[in-house]
């Protein structure tokens, strides 16, 4: 066998072994994730939440909403936030130099007025031009600030936040009415908790009435359905398992609750990064482990937030390309944590996992596709073997999508109609008919663009009120 052939076979064997390890990881993660769901569903019982509120040992929350050009959804989002079921919270919308009518719509809808405010500027931000308040809704504050990006907008809102917990969310997301009670309860259970993440579910297809999801119907497009499965796998299986292992590395920017003092201690969110949400979590890990302080980053599998996902493959590609760049950028920034025993299981397990199976998966999968082409061209690949391997790969993917879906059947707010469940079942196969390959390709290309593209707001073309209420 030639050297080329040997290298090729070595790579092929590596891809197969890698694949085997990843598959086993998912299987174990499903079991661990189920344990988290069992415990969480009992601990966050209706009686526990009732006690929290009635006996007044909750921690008040400031909900921070960075908004760039969100004129289509912002008033509905604020309306839904003002209807949350929690006794003490405030909503701070940070309008980050919007060039559309985001601010104007807020002013009109909520009768906002200038309200000079004295506040402690704990984190440096771009200039806040004015602070507006609503006489009708004293719990609503709107900041009009110079554009500085999502992280800067959140930091400006952190400065104004009055309460010990801050909940950061996207302007185009919807919160479960009990989201704050459920997330804030985890801070009561353990003083060491500095951040809590919750599960997200795609809003596409869901029926929304009065700012709340009343029916979780499956979306109409395959690319959206594939993302429903992907979110189920990611949140109900992977993140739940990582939280069980005490190594949660990501809290989605669409919903996360943080101890305000901890955020300030680490200097707030870092402006200019694509994955500032992930960076905040790693920053918290590093900060507390450097100082040998007890801390915990918790996760509740309860789906507390509904978020819009791309409706077209090219939007999905753009989003995933941005995420990939963001993850790589952050991992590179925190490369000293990799295999560093000083950071415990984060340095020895969590960060290596991200390198190996987040960034690595893109590289290995792309390499796999390239190997197929090269091996075939060189006459070194048996077509029968290739087909068998592809079938196995697809079956693995389908298996874990199905596991994610089965987890969802444990939810009360699940896909109730048989045709929805069938559509999602078929989507598990459809994912491999081009969508997955297109996304992997974009992610692979993104690995070479980390330095050439700057952070920006991720916006979907569907973030309009019509899309939110109409995407059913």
């Amino acid at each position, binding site marked *: 066998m030639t050297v080329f052939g040997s290298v090729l076979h070595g790579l092929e064997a590596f891809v197969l072994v890698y694949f085997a390890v990843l598959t086993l990881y998912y299987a174990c993660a499903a079991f661990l994730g189920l344990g988290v769901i069992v415990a969480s569903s009992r601990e966050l019982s209706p009686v526990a939440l009732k006690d929290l509120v009635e006996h007044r040992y909750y921690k008040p929350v400031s909900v921070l909403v960075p908004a760039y050009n969100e004129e289509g959804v912002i008033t509905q989002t604020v309306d839904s936030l003002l209807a949350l079921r929690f006794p003490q919270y405030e909503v701070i919308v940070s309008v980050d130099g919007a060039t559309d009518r985001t601010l104007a719509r807020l002013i009109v809808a909520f009768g906002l007025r200038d309200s000079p405010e004295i506040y402690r500027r704990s984190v440096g931000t771009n200039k806040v031009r004015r602070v507006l308040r609503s006489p009708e809704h004293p719990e609503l504050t709107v900041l009009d600030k110079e554009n500085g990006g999502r992280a800067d907008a959140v930091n400006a809102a952190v400065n104004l936040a009055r309460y010990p917990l801050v909940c950061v969310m996207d302007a185009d997301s919807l919160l479960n009415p009990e989201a704050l009670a459920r997330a804030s309860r985890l801070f009561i259970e353990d003083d060491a908790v500095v951040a809590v993440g919750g599960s997200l579910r795609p809003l596409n297809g869901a029926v929304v009435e009065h700012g709340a999801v009343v029916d979780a119907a499956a979306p109409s497009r395959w690319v959206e359905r594939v993302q429903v499965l992907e979110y189920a796998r990611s949140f109900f299986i992977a993140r739940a398992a990582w939280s069980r292992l005490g190594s949660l590395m990501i809290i989605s920017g669409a919903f996360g609750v943080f101890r305000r003092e901890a955020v300030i201690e680490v200097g707030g969110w870092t402006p200019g990064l694509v994955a500032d949400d992930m960076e905040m979590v790693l920053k918290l890990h590093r900060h507390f482990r450097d100082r040998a302080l007890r801390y915990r980053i918790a996760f509740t599998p309860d789906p507390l937030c509904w978020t819009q996902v791309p409706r077209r493959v090219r939007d999905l590609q753009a989003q995933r390309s941005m995420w990939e760049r963001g993850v790589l950028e952050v991992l590179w920034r925190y490369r000293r944590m990799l295999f560093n025993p000083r950071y415990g299981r984060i340095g020895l397990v969590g960060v290596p996992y991200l390198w190996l199976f987040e960034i690595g998966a893109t590289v290995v999968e792309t390499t796999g596709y390239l190997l197929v082409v090269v091996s075939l061209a060189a006459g070194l690949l048996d077509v029968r073997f290739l087909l068998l391997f592809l079938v196995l790969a697809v079956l693995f993917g389908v298996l874990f999508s199905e596991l994610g879906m089965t987890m969802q059947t444990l939810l*009360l707010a699940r896909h109730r109609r048989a045709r929805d469940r069938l559509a999602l079942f078929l989507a598990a196969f459809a994912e491999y008919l081009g969508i997955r390959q297109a996304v992997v390709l974009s992610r692979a290309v993104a690995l070479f663009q980390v330095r050439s593209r700057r952070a920006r707001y991720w916006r979907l073309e569907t973030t309009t009120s019509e899309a939110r209420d109409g995407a059913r």
Partner: protein
Amino acid sequence: MTCGTTVPGVDPAGVDPPGEQPPGVDPDPGRIWRRGGEALFAALTLAIVAAEAGALGVLVWVLLFGHTTPSAGEPLLDDVLVAAISTTALLVAAVTVVMVFLGATGARRDEAETASKARWLATWRAVMEGNRPCPTGNLGRAAIDALLDLRESATGPEAGLAQAVVESSGTDRVLMGRLEGIVADSRRSTLLRALRLPPLFRPRPTAASALDTLEDLARARLAESVPLLTALVANGTGARRRQALRAAARSIAVIEDPTAQAAAAVTLLQSLSHRGVPRGELDEALMLLDQAAPAAARAVTARYGASPPEEASFGATLLAASLDAAGRLGSTAVADLLAPQLRDDRPLEVRAAALRALAAQPSLPPGTEQVLRRALSDPQDVVRTQAAKAVRLFPDGDAARALSALLADPSWWVRLAAGQTLAILGPVGKAALADAALHDRDRYARQMAAQALRDAGLGYGTGGRTDVGVASRQVPA
């Protein structure tokens, strides 16, 4: 009400009694996850782990050590791949069957459970009203759930009636039996637990069933469950300990004899002493103790309040939590305990908690005035902040003078507390704020006074400055 008999027409296995679903009943408000289906799912995932580990292990073994290559068209490799595919396909089929089964039956089962629970609610209401005999025997999940929901929502005399039904229906005995199983399980050696071997003659409770039972006990509030729950708090870990703590605190809150109630509360709190219990859990337990909390605070003060506990020790944390709870409950029963805890030599968290409890009193307890005055100039800003809130107990003029001075405090939090307290003092406070907003020599005092007036709805000025970055000044050493 004639309890203790099996009602004709009610299946002992838990089949629903006849009856209409009362309108407006939401049997499971606030629940996100369904009960049931978890065991099936757990078995499925374990089967997947085992099967995939086997199939993939063989595949990897063949690739690494089988002297074969992926491209050689080796029959052995093909056979292994086919076996892996077959195994995975079978698992996909199994998961699909489970998913279809849960999906197809789930909605119907949810509806049936909802209807069953609603009928049971109606039944239990009828029992409480004396319109029908009390069902007993194996009541089933829906019946117990409905009864405990009723117990949870009932207040006043109705709560007593509901409690009587809990006892006469045998629900208390069912729950106590389950609790004994959980406690026995928690006492087993680590080795036995690791091996998951059940103790003889007693089924081992699963994680889900144990947590469900503890939740049921929290709703049932059985005084007799307190010793076992306290033992579980002492021996349990994680979710079980937290659930047991909640259930115990809620049950102690309904003990009628004050002496027994206080003793149970103190025993519960002391059972936590050897564990690193988070402050939040202590707060929760104390607030759930409700009327027992002040008595517990007295006992805790007697235990830890005489000799100064060390900073951040369990004693200091428990003492601070107890005083805080008494303050939040607006209890005047701890007023006489506060003065000694305000002294400079007490741990910071205890002093802060004592000041918060003091601020909740209707008037200044004897012996606290001088300590409070000293606290206003304490080097720790957390103490000054809490003192600023408690100063409202001074006579108005006196309070206004002290608070006006604090408006120029180096700490933003102290200035904020001073401004907010002045705003609630009445005309004297508002006049002091208006004066400070216009004439105070300190710029920060003027701004804080103006903001306090605006926050109080007095619309004072609109020309203040925003984004002032006031964190630059530090507390002098």
